[in-house]
């Protein structure tokens, strides 16, 4: 087992990849490098090309143009059977007429292993996925979560250099999904196998990935660790797709600021010229709540007096719709902890002050927003 924290070397290189289905461009000039032992998620809405990219890496649907290099070897034109990977599908794809043991052993049978060696390896794998007693059953006799673990065991049976997961948890119940999410991550860390997972579930991606590749319309929007993707989205699309985001129509002003309705708000540094139409975006949990009579300091100018239009209790926090006439009728969503709500005695119809920290107020171009909310 190698120490993944140590030196990371690029294991998989994808260079200028294109995939065309007739006139339709499914992947447009994708370039990406994945390190050894890394867990990468391809995240995006359906039709963004993430599964196409995974299948190109596997050699199941070979790309139209571009190269793929795995462990120093150019595998661009190799058929799937000549590549080194294990794969798990959403449908599990377990062979229904074979027992669990035979499913796991399917790839081990003709590589010169003795019967005994195969038996040992299968036992080992069954232990690894936590189902040591289920070997003699048929897939249909197991639950969905159990079946997916068997599929995982089968995929790693031959110790592949690359593990590909195609929406592996999407067919499962919410509870099982969260549980298995953790286990898959744990297993991957233990084996240190380079892993690529395709998902449309942002929560899953944030929880599991070392790095997330956000895709849209066949193009990579952003690549980065989960926290970076969440905190520093580089486009409105990423900002909107991952987590909640307030979007306010605004006009750029001189010196890192914008005007929303009649209010001038300091923002992050931006390159827009004064007068340009922009979108000011801030996450609901970045709004800082204050009591109605709060006197803002001179240097934190972004304070607004708002009315609490609606409050929705979501367990650990309150989601509040906030209105302010000077915002030009636009609403803000704020997520405030139960604690804060009690401390400030928030209630529907009441007033409060909110602070929009300039460092959390991101500015994006306006034209992007139009195709951003699909």
């Amino acid at each position: 087992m190698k120490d993944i924290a140590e030196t990371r070397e690029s294991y998989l290189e994808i260079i200028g990849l294109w995939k065309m289905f007739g006139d339709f461009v499914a992947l447009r000039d994708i370039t990406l490098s994945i390190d050894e032992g890394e867990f990468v998620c391809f995240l995006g809405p359906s039709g963004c090309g993430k599964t196409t990219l995974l299948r190109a890496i596997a050699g199941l649907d070979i790309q139209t143009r571009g190269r793929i290099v795995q462990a120093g070897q150019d595998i661009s034109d190799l058929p799937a059977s000549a590549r080194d990977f294990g794969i798990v599908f959403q449908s599990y794809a377990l062979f229904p007429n074979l027992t669990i043991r035979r499913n796991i052993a399917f790839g081990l049978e003709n590589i010169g292993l003795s019967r005994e060696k195969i038996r040992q390896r299968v036992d080992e794998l069954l232990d690894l996925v936590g189902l040591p007693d289920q070997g003699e059953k048929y897939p249909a006799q197991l639950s969905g979560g159990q079946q997916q673990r068997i599929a995982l065991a089968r995929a790693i049976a031959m110790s592949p250099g690359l593990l590909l997961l195609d929406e592996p948890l999407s067919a499962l119940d919410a509870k099982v999904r969260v549980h298995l999410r953790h286990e898959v991550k744990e297993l991957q860390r233990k084996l240190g196998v380079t892993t690529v997972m395709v998902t449309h579930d942002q929560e899953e991606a944030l929880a599991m990935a070392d790095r997330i590749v956000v895709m849209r319309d066949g193009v990579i929007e952003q690549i980065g660790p989960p926290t970076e993707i969440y905190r520093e989205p580089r486009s409105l699309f990423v900002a909107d797709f991952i987590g909640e985001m307030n979007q306010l129509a605004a006009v750029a002003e001189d010196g890192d600021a914008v005007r929303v309705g009649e209010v001038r708000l300091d923002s992050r540094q931006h390159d827009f010229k004064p007068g340009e139409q922009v979108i000011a975006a801030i996450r609901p949990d970045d709004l800082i709540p204050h009591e109605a009579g709060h006197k803002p300091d001179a240097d934190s100018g972004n304070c607004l007096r708002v009315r609490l239009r609606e409050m929705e209790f979501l367990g650990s926090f309150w989601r509040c719709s906030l209105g302010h006439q000077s915002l030009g009728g636009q609403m803000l969503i704020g997520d405030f902890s139960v604690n804060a709500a009690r401390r400030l005695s928030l209630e529907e119809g009441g007033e409060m002050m909110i602070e929009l920290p300039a460092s959390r107020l991101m500015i994006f171009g306006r034209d992007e927003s139009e195709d951003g909310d699909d």
Partner: protein
Amino acid sequence: MAMTDRASPAIPRGGRIRARLSRDDVIMRASMVMIALYLLITLILPLYVMFSKAFTTNTFDLSQYEVQVSNEEGEFENPPVNLAVLNEKLGVFGPADLATSSDGRLPVTRLFPDFSFRSPVKYRIHGTTPDAAMLVGSALHKGTEWVELDSNTFRRVVLRPKKERGFENFRAYFSTPALFNSIENSLFIATVTTIITVLLAFGFAYALNRSCMRFKGAFRLIAMMPILVPSLLPGIALVYLFGNQGIFKELLMGESIYGPIGIIIGSVFFTFPHAFIIISTALAISDSRLYEAATALRASPWRIFWTVTIPGARYGLISAAFVVFNLVITDFGLPKVIGGQYNVLAVDIYKQVIGQQNFSMGAVVSVVLVVPAVIAFAIDRMMQGRQVAMLTSRSVPYQPKPNPKADRAWFLYSLMIAVFIVGILAMCQFAALVKFWPYDLSLSLRNYQFDLMDGGGWASYRNSLKLGILTAIAGTSVIFFGAYLVEKMKGFEWGRNIFQGMAMLPMAIPGMVLGLSYIFFFNNPDNPLRFLYGTLAILVISTVTHFYTVSHLTAVTALKQMDGEFESVAASLKQSQLKLFRRVTVPVSLPAILDISIYLFVNALTTVSAVVFLYSPDTTLASIAVLNMDDAGDIAPAAAMGMMIFYTNAGARILHAVLSKGILARTQAWRGR
């Protein structure tokens, strides 16, 4: 790691990746090419040859030749005469004599009434066009050069026909009322039968699906019985029931059973199960929530029937109608047995080919028959597609509620149908056992001494069994593997599309047409495959090809239900597709594979149409024996042989059911939870 610019880059030129093929890809593509080649040789090429025959005429064109006759001293004083002019003067050959086949030979001397081979007169003959051909003995002369011959040699001169492409054959066909009247007859029989069968089958299917009557299982079983016998068997039963010495002859009030009445009754019998299956499926998939909604809206049962039931089953009804139409119009056995003087297209092909040896006219009638068959087939396919689309996974099956009065009415109705079906079969069995109808009704097994009759005796029965088993084994292997390749292969899109099209074609081709096209193709001396002609192998091949489509569709449906990623998983595990096929695909598809083999077996035993042109004295078949014994007047033995086919098929069905259950229980333990 550079982030890609959103501003879309242009598609680069060149550098397209050409995927390398794995060994599996190569094997699979090669296999598919092999099976496609099989279909090409056993279907496309024979049909092509037949069609081109229908549009080819061979005639002796006398105007192409000139002959000059010398005097007794051998001096050519008279001018040359054109043979056409000569024929016109003498009237030796009529147009019918001049129409011929590609092998035709016309002796010239008949145009010279004074000809004597001992005379010292000499003859010169030549063609007026470069294409004019003649044989002197066995030497071919072609072109315009004069050939001088003495009398003894001149008698060995024969003319060769001129080959032309065009509609001449069709003109001849449509100017012979005896022939083209069959079109009307065929359409009439098919239409009337379609209406009767679909109505009867709809009622029967409705009773089974929508009432709470008793003995549904038995009724379902009885409805399927006609599939197990050759289509001509009801004809024999009808002879005994309504023929000249029939039990119920008076019921026809002077009408003869030999003719349209007999054909229609018999056709209703043998098409009934086909219509019943389709309509029953259509009724079974209807959504009970529609009925609940209609009842909640206080619609009357009558209104519900017309606004919910009929629209729900409409594609099934239309599909059934065209299937029945197709079966009837292409059927040959029944009208042969009971049609009397009433000519239909399928029998015309037989008569032209077997009776008159007029192969081109047989080909013309085939083309005429293919037209309605292809149209009916195309419409049926369209309807089947829509019926499937109506089935949603969320529909709730309809559960009928007891209604004593209606249930009793439906029971009586179904009983009537069952009596009709069982009655026909029972009549055949009884006739087969009677010593001498109608004078000595005591029972004996005399009629089972097939070796004493025409038709090939018990050997025919054994041949049929062989044919059935070989067809089931070879056909199932080829068809299932072909379907697997089409369904699971990667890439090679155009190849798969062509293959799929070829696999659908056999269903549109009537058996008579296929059989005749085999004669043209396989009996051609230039064909290296000619050795197949007259063997059991060609009977197996024609039967597999004839029943290819339904089997192919069954296999494709079963394969579609399998997880599409099995192949991907096997590739990732470095396992060959063939191992996957053997270890997973075949075991999981076993029910479908068994269904295909029993379908092929039963049809191999009952089919008459394609094989009637292809059997040889060594390969006579039971179904053909029924036909030939009936033809020879041995009707009781024909009935006996027909019932042998019935019992064999019934036995095979039972074996199939037991086997399916046994194998499923053993190898498919995984199916149950």
